[in-house]
């Protein structure tokens, strides 16, 4: 699917007021990913071309096994594609070292996961601060508190994850992902562990954050009821992208 993807897609979005991307955050050109080799090889991605800009929410949908997580891993520089190139804010990464990719990841990316995965021993605030510490930022508590307030969990500073609801945990995880002002936020099925109301609220929050913080938010989900939150819907089928 060459060219033509620089603008956010709107026709599938039920939500009005799409905005043009402020900046191109990610570019994939002819990206393939094959697991294994020979007869047992699995072609998880086949010739994917994709441009994603900041300031909007893209939603990746598709049946199980279609390659959604793989695509997200490649987008997030967590995984090297078997072929093709990945550019992050214009910088090609395929020939760079793992430590360089790791530092690109630290600076540009935030991640939100299906399992949420807050550290159980740390309070909400500490979990957010830890992201700053890992990224080598002078972890300012003020910044962490304002992020938590921003995602609506200001009151959970001192609470341990086990004492939070699933939706609250996911919001803390989003605050954690946003620490250090990343320009790209990747979320793999962030709503899978949540009930319908919390799932909708989470997507609502992510879309709102994408605009106000000018972040490229990319969400994997196969929950059709959430598709209308997307500025752009990308459908994967058997490793191929169709929009």
């Amino acid at each position, binding site marked *: 699917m060459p060219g033509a993807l620089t603008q956010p897609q709107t026709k599938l979005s039920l939500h009005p007021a799409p905005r043009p991307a402020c900046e191109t955050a990610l570019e994939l050109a002819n990206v393939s990913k094959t697991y294994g080799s020979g007869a047992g090889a699995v072609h998880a991605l086949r010739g994917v071309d994709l441009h994603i800009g900041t300031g909007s929410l893209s939603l990746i949908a598709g049946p199980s096994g279609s390659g959604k997580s793989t695509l*997200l891993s490649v987008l997030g520089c967590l995984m090297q594609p078997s072929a093709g190139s990945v550019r992050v804010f214009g910088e090609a990464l395929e020939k760079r070292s793992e*430590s360089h990719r790791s*530092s690109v990841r630290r600076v540009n990316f935030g991640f939100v*996961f299906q399992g949420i*995965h807050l550290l*159980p021993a740390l309070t909400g605030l*500490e979990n957010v601060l830890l992201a700053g510490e890992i990224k080598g930022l002078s972890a300012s508590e003020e910044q962490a508190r304002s992020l938590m307030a921003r995602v609506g969990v200001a009151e959970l500073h001192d609470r341990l994850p086990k004492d939070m609801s699933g939706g609250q945990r996911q919001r803390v995880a989003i605050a954690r992902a946003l620490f250090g002002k990343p320009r790209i936020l990747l979320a793999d099925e962030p709503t899978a562990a949540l009930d319908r109301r919390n799932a909708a609220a989470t997507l609502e929050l992510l879309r709102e954050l994408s605009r106000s913080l000018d972040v490229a938010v990319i969400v994997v989900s196969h929950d059709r009821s959430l598709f209308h939150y997307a500025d752009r819907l990308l459908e994967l089928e058997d490793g191929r992208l169709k929009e």
Partner: protein
Amino acid sequence: MIPVAFKNLLHNRARLAVALGGVAFSVVLTLIELGILLGFLKNATAVIDRTPAELWVMAPQTPNQDMSHPISDRIAGQTRSVPGVAWAENLIFDWGVWKGADGRQENVQIIGIDLDGHIPLPLIAEKEDLEKLRRPNTVLLDTAERKRLGVDRVGVQAELWGRRAEIVGFTRGGRTFTTAAILVAQYDQAKEFTFTPMGGQTSFVQVKVADGYRVEDVQERLRERLSGVEVLTGAEFRARTIRYWLVTTGVGTGFLISALMGLLVGGAVVAQVLYANVVEHLKEFGVMKALGASPWWQTGLLLEQAAYVGLGGCALGLLSSAGLARVVEATQTPIWMPWPLMLCALAVAVVICLAASMVPAAKLLRLEPAAVFMS
């Protein structure tokens, strides 16, 4: 800085308790084991350690302090005529058989010294008790073995190789490697009490070197002058004694192996606990990796946890060992835990804990950051 390592450990208290207990147990095992070994070795050289004499004359190939062979007691006289010898005195240190009034028989070690000489006893004796030894057929018994010989008071009579012997007092702190009961008698008297009567013979001659002479020179001169005997410095005799018990008998190897096992057990427990922690929180660690945590940061986290476990467990272990040492001492088993040994235990335990943390660290370093998405 968030104390992540600390909080992680405290979060699962049961597991922390197992880890601390494991390290403590291993430290106790190792310390008690080595402490007893050191205690025995200290006893094994008690006589050598106590004397101010620098040189020892003995039968050739004498393996250790406790297993002497008789040599002629004229040697002391010959020794005294060698220039550089301040004094030379005989010491009986041999074996006898105790036969109590109640019929019980025990092998005992008999020390015989010149009451007016320079050789100190390897135990504590009151002056007035020593004076009583001037009477014939008298001995002092070390309190440590009173029960074993069934002696409850002064005045008890027994037979030593057919000779009547009366306990006229008690000594304290007498210990040998063999843990046999120690009897002290006057030099000439002791010769009659030993297993093979030692008329005209002695076990050792101790030699004090005069001021202004080099020990090696006097040793060399004695070797030239005396025939049929061996002349060792105290250090040489001590080394030979220790080597005998440690190497020749295999006792040392046994102790060292069990001490090593103790350390391995502790190391395995710590590795297991840290590993379980990592496996249980693999996703969280994967998240940290995805967030950009460097391998150093993650390894550092594990090392920090291991160090806490090591130090905490060791503190527990040292305290318990000190307590247990008292108990062991009360059973008359020699035990000696000098502070350098404690420090070594601390250092080794921490190093082993740190090494053990490399097992989960290897797992973490292999962890694909993408793995957190693939669930």
